[in-house]
């Protein structure tokens, strides 16, 4: 039998991560992720068994360097097109509920 309690991610930590990720989880979701993330993270623990001390990390798989564009202005989207998918807009601006408060 696997010990589910041991593998859980504590609820407070689930809540902290959800806050960082801007996800308003329901209580059920918190509960579920607490168990599932625990299991998955436990599975990932296997990497700690590899000897990785002197291994360089790979962030990019290609050896490409120095890719640039020249400083040339290209036509922008018309304002109307830029705002086309906006759920709310006014006077050429995107509009969202107040950011402060």
């Amino acid at each position: 039998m696997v010990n589910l309690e041991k593998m859980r991610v504590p609820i407070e930590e689930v809540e902290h991560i959800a806050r960082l990720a801007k996800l308003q989880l329901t209580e059920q979701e918190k509960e579920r992720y607490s168990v599932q993330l625990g299991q998955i993270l436990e599975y990932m623990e296997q990497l700690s068994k590899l000897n990785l001390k002197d291994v360089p990390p790979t962030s990019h798989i290609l050896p490409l360097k120095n890719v640039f564009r020249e400083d040339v202005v290209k036509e922008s989207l018309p304002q109307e097109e830029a705002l086309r998918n906006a759920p709310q807009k006014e006077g050429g601006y995107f509009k969202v509920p107040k950011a402060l408060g």
Partner: protein
Amino acid sequence: MKLHLLPAHSLLALLGRGEVSAEEVVSSFLHRVEEVEGDLNAFITLFSQDSLTQAREVDKLRAKGERVGRLAGVPIAIKDNICVQGKRMTCGSRMLSNFVPPYDATVVRRLKEEGAIIIGKTNMDEFAMGSSNENSFFGPVKNPFDSQRVSGGSSGGSAAAVSAGEAPMALGSDTGGSVRLPASFCGVVGLKPTYGLVSRFGLVAFASSLDQIGVLTRDVEDCALLLEVIAGYDPQDSTSIDQHLPDLVLEMKKGIKGLRVGLPEEYFSPEVDPQVKEAVLRAVNQLTLEGVEVERVNLPHTTSAIATYYIIADAEASSNLARYDGARYGYRAQGTRVLLDMYSRTRNEGFGDEVKRRIMLGTYVLSSGYYDAYYLQAQKARTLIRKDFEEAFCRCDLLVTPTSPTPAFKLGEKMDDPLLMYLSDSFTVPANLAGLPSLSIPCGMTREGLPIGMQIIGPPLGESQILGLASIYEQVASKGRDGL
């Protein structure tokens, strides 16, 4: 003549000789869509009228004797995470259910330039996260061989569409096997190119260091043809390879005598379904008769691939999916008065379960205190996995493995166990982690009548060799069938 069962190169031959019109070709496929779509659910959006109009344009050009593109009049289905200007793109998500991109992906622009006709956008796991295509806001895609089973994911709609004759070719995307896995489950050819060979501009990012647009076709020649059209340097993608690709269709017909094929032991482990193992080994056997040399090789870090992959992919995804916040486009939760609530509720309502799980996991492994333990470790493990391949390719030209440890599984079978679902990708993720080209080709059926896929992995930019071997195998296999 059942046009919808023909590969694109055959359609092109008929079109070129004037034996059929593009309009007839497109109608034939649209008709087929009407027939089977109710069972399959392969498409999210169809462009029936537009594609017929475009087909007539192509016919007019041909009639006037004007130059037409290499894919003129050929219908193609596009996975719904690749932008087509002015057409809704959902990524299989509620979050983008009303989003209309104002630009074409580079691959779409190239397809249009060659006269291909985009008939619709295919169903997919939400934001390409899934192995079964059950994570779509628009419902699962069913396997054309058995409607109780999954199509495989995340490009399940593209694979099913090609398999069922709804389109002769399709584009998918492959981050950890999302082209090859559904190709193998649905019995079509699927290729994930070398990382950087095909521009990612206009492909909605899941995990940027792993994503590649791939192709799904009925046969190997179509695969080469479509890859030729979409591949090539794109100044809008900083990770695009600036190198000329040889003429693939020509190159792949060169023959394979003396080609050294490696069988990595780790991919033939006891967990692999015996029928799958048997089919792949039988295929390899047939290839040895054609002059291929086979040897066993080892990729010792294969078992670390899933852990490595899900850390890196989900970390990148958690960042790539941060832009879906309801502010500028897409879904927005109603009735919120404060920005933070708007964000959190929009994201919770707009994303499905699997996507949220991955965002949570990705956020976790990047967060303060865990970065070194997970993300950095995974980046290092990625180096080891890449080196495994480098060493293997010193000894052989190509690697052959099963595409998936099992054939298509039942709908719902793995939905409650995310980890079990993740393990479906065990044989496909290593090629993404190493940036290598990899193709899945049908290599027989199980006794239950489900397709089995054989995976061929090549060194960077080894597409022509892969296609060469796949093409020979295709001929051998069809000879075998004809003989029976």
